[in-house]
């Protein structure tokens, strides 16, 4: 029954519905944008209305929220965290630093284009984006999930070599022990 195509579609719809309404967010406080997360989650903006809640570890999280600039040192950890998350998983780039480097465009130790290194599903621009914008971004993501287009993880898996090459370039030759990513 499960292999039946129509049934699979129904199952997919149910699963996507569940995924959409239950987003566990790993807010990786990499940059100054992390300060926007508390108001988003607490009483003023209350993102929990939409089923969005914080997760403490990547194993439990669905969404990796990258809040701002990523130094070369941090990006290594971020990649690891992303790879530790369970499929399906989504990445939200947060603030202009993740889009084009923002004010760190000429910094010697900050990456500038996040989607070369990780499959970003949604970018939220602004420096910093307000909580309203963040929630807007989440709703966009939910829409994408429901439509079945939030396939960043799949994309990452398929283009792993490209991503790896990009990552290696930034992280340097001696960067060790990024786990083999084989699922």
């Amino acid at each position, binding site marked *: 029954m499960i292999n039946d195509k129509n049934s699979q579609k129904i199952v997919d719809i149910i699963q996507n519905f569940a995924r959409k309404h239950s987003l566990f967010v790993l807010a990786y406080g990499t940059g100054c944008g992390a300060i926007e997360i508390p108001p988003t989650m607490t009483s003023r903006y209350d993102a929990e209305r939409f089923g969005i809640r914080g997760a403490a570890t990547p194993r439990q999280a669905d969404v990796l929220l990258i809040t701002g600039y990523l130094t*070369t*040192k941090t990006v290594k950890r971020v990649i690891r965290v992303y790879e530790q998350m369970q499929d399906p998983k989504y990445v939200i780039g947060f603030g202009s630093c993740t*889009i*084009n*480097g923002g*004010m760190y*465009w*000429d*910094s*010697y*130790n*900050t*990456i*500038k*284009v996040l989607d*070369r290194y990780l499959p970003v599903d949604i970018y939220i621009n602004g420096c910093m984006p307000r909580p309203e914008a963040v929630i807007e971004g989440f709703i966009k993501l939910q829409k994408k999930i429901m439509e079945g287009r939030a396939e960043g993880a799949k994309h990452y898996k398929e283009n792993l070599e490209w991503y790896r090459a*990009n990552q290696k*370039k*930034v*992280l*340097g*030759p*001696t*960067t060790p022990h990024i786990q083999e990513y084989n699922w």
Partner: protein
Amino acid sequence: MEEKKAQILEKLQKVFPEISETKNDFPYNRVDLRIEKNKIPAILFYLKDEMGYKHLVHITCVDWLEEGKFEVIFIVWSPVDKIKVFVKTFLDRNNPVMDNVDMIWRQANTYERELREMFGIQFEGLVAPKEFILEDWDDMPPMRRDFDTEAYARKRFFARPGREDARDVRQTIAERTGEEIPDFAKKYSR
């Protein structure tokens, strides 16, 4: 306060006649003095043990590119006098070597590591792992003023299309608002 500062300088000068330049005209509890680099451990020892300057606030460095010098500054503080003493010394920029002082304060080790990594100043006898903040760094120490950070960033990181002009934001703003750009900003902007 002023008298106390003067007393301190006087006392130090008595013990260390090599002190070349002193300054205590800051309105705060701050005294500056300059000394040769080989006298640094001695004066720091003296300050710590004899005069009660038990706390090392910071070790920092200024890159005098034009003069070809690094100026290393040791800031020490006495909880009794409530006065900061800035002990400064010049190093040759081409051969920045000086004595390690982490036997006086353990925490000096950390500052020295930072200076070593960011300015390339070698502290003789410093025992610490090679990498501190930068990982796999193979270029010039990045905090030196002759390090071209933009070129380095271009070389190493992807840039999103649309920023090819690489204009300084200040310039854009100046054009829009008619604001005057200060000279020092012009110097390194393209």
